[in-house]
């Protein structure tokens, strides 16, 4: 049965108990800040122009305040006095089948949780936090799109979201190690696996071993040049992705994060380094400790911060002349706006390329590529995703760059599709790939 029909039949089968369960999860996810947000929207509508969905398809359903209102109406109906006494006056509505359907469309189908509306809201409402609560409620009602849930299930069952076997992973690492040794001419260039007591545990997106081994090789080359004491793990804990951030099931997200925590404990590493992945960074750095309700006994860093340290400390030397093609930088929402990693990648790139042009807008104002929020895993919304990505395509075209650097593998997937859809004719690379190309071997 096609995914669309499956969801329709799940909606048709919803009963009162499902709605009550959804409401209970929704209530449990809300904190005092969220309650404040839900009491604050004045329906000014100015947020519309901040949303890439609305910019490319200016309809009411794409206005962030509209998406928020669908959720706020249920909040009012169930958790406010006026919502109970005068629902028509304040726009309070029950969570019923029709509303559940509207929620699915709004929070899964028309939002990448990028948070651009938050920084543009005249009041300051962090809309994605509310949308996450709604996604969690829908999950409790069995309404997470099945392909998105399948990605989470892969991680839970196989320890990585692409269901790679241990053998495939280990053999790929060994093969990349041989490639690295050939590239560097150094038989001691390694991609260490399960090195006990290594300082750094490096984690990757499964897309790298599966489809983009050169990306992993580039990171390894940087570690090699910096003489880093690093390792990866052969067992669970090598995959940095966590689509629990997108289905918003905290229990499942916590179990996936636990793989990383266990690997750190198993190997006795000091720093967990997240490869170039926006949501993976946000999940491990920011949400993971909250899901597991613990202070991590180790440091969590993005590889961007590590490379920035290497350049600053002179552990690697870069020759920008080796990257003469004009470069622009995409700011992944979960890494920059929600992650706080704004400048490290810029400092590194300025050392690694000859011509670096900022996109307009940039940093926390940058547009989402359209692939965030689990959109890449939800086939049913593909046409909307590509349309919404038009804003990013316009930014890239306007930059005049021929290489788009994107420190996020999900973004790279989306940008690759945009490259074809909008005939951008650009190369798309990671920061590590640019750095690896610019490396000047230390004497």
């Amino acid at each position: 049965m096609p995914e669309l029909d499956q969801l329709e039949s799940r909606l048709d089968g919803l009963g009162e108990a499902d709605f009550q369960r959804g409401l209970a999860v929704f209530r449990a996810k809300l904190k005092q800040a969220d309650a404040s947000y839900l009491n604050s929207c004045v329906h000014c509508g100015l947020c519309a122009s901040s949303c890439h969905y609305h910019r490319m398809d200016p309809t009411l359903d794409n206005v962030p305040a509209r998406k928020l209102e669908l959720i706020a109406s249920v909040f009012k109906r169930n958790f406010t006095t006026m919502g109970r006494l005068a629902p028509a006056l304040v726009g309070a509505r029950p969570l019923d089948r029709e509303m559940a359907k509207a929620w699915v469309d709004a929070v899964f189908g028309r939002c990448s949780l990028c948070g651009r509306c938050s920084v543009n809201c005249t009041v300051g409402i962090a809309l994605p936090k509310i949308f996450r609560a709604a996604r969690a409620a829908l999950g409790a009602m069995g309404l997470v799109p099945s392909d998105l849930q399948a990605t989470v299930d892969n991680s839970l069952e196989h320890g990585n979201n692409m269901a790679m076997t241990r053998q495939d992973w280990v053999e790929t690492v060994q093969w990349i190690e041989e490639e690295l040794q050939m590239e560097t001419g150094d038989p001691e260039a390694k991609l260490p696996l399960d090195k006990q007591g290594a300082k750094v545990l490096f984690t990757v997106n499964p897309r790298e071993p599966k489809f983009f081994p050169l990306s992993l090789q580039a990171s390894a080359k940087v570690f090699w040049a910096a003489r880093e004491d690093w390792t990866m793990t052969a067992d669970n804990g090598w995959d940095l992705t966590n689509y629990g951030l997108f289905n918003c099931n905290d229990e499942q997200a916590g179990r996936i994060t636990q793989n990383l925590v266990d690997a750190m404990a198993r190997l006795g590493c000091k720093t967990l380094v997240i490869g170039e992945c926006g949501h993976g960074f946000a999940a491990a750095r920011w949400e993971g400790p909250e899901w597991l309700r613990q202070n991590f006994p180790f440091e969590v860093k993005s590889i961007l911060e590590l490379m920035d340290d290497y350049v600053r400390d002179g552990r690697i030397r870069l020759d920008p002349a080796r990257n003469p093609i004009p470069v622009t930088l995409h700011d992944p929402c979960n890494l920059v706006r929600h992650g706080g990693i704004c400048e490290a990648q810029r400092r590194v790139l300025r050392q690694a390329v000859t011509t670096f042009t900022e996109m307009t807008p940039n940093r926390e104002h940058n547009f989402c590529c359209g692939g965030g929020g689990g959109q890449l895993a939800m086939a049913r919304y593909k046409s909307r995703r590509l349309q919404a990505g038009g804003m990013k395509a316009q930014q890239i075209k306007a930059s005049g760059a021929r290489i788009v650097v994107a420190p996020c593998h999900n973004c790279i997937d989306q940008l690759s599709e945009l490259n074809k859809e909008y005939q951008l004719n650009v190369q798309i690379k990671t920061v590590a790939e640019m750095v690896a190309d610019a490396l000047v071997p230390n004497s």
Partner: protein
Amino acid sequence: MSPLHLGVLLALAWAILALGSMHRKAKAFGPASTFAKPAGDFRRGVRYAFTKGMAPWAKESVMLNLPSYGAGMVFHAGVITALGMLLLTLAGLRPAGLAMTLARLLTLAGAFAGAALLAKRLVNRELRGLSCPDDFVANLLCTAFALLAFAASFSAALAGAWLTEAILLLVYAPMGKIRHCFFFFTTRYHFGAFFGRRGTFPPGGSFHA
């Protein structure tokens, strides 16, 4: 004290108590956990949210909609001025000279801006779709409040109408979206704290070329 003055005081007390109760209810949802080590100082984020982050040029959405934003600001200035005049009236005072001229200017401009925003809400299909009856009631009450404050400053005969309108406004304030007069500040605080803790605020980005 006239019955209308007393009515305004009671309505004001109701508004404060009801908003306080709503604040307590919101707080009962509990704080978000903060196990992750901060990357920035939440206080700097809060400071930014209430200062530079409020500037029109800090938000692309505002720069793209300057007339609406400007109307909103004037509307708010008019209503706040009218509230100030109300408090002075309750205290038996009346602004004079330049202060009165300024108050009249602001309340009149505020009333016009409110009416313009109401018209926009009625005419603009997208904005109308976003709206519920509360949006119209809230605007009408505030617009009328500012307009009557202006009118009553010229004619004592209109003071009764203005004070009655003030009672309606204050009674309604916690019930509908006017409650953002309080929740704006808590939301702004949480917004600044969230992005400050993550090191995103104060920002360095730009939406300008």
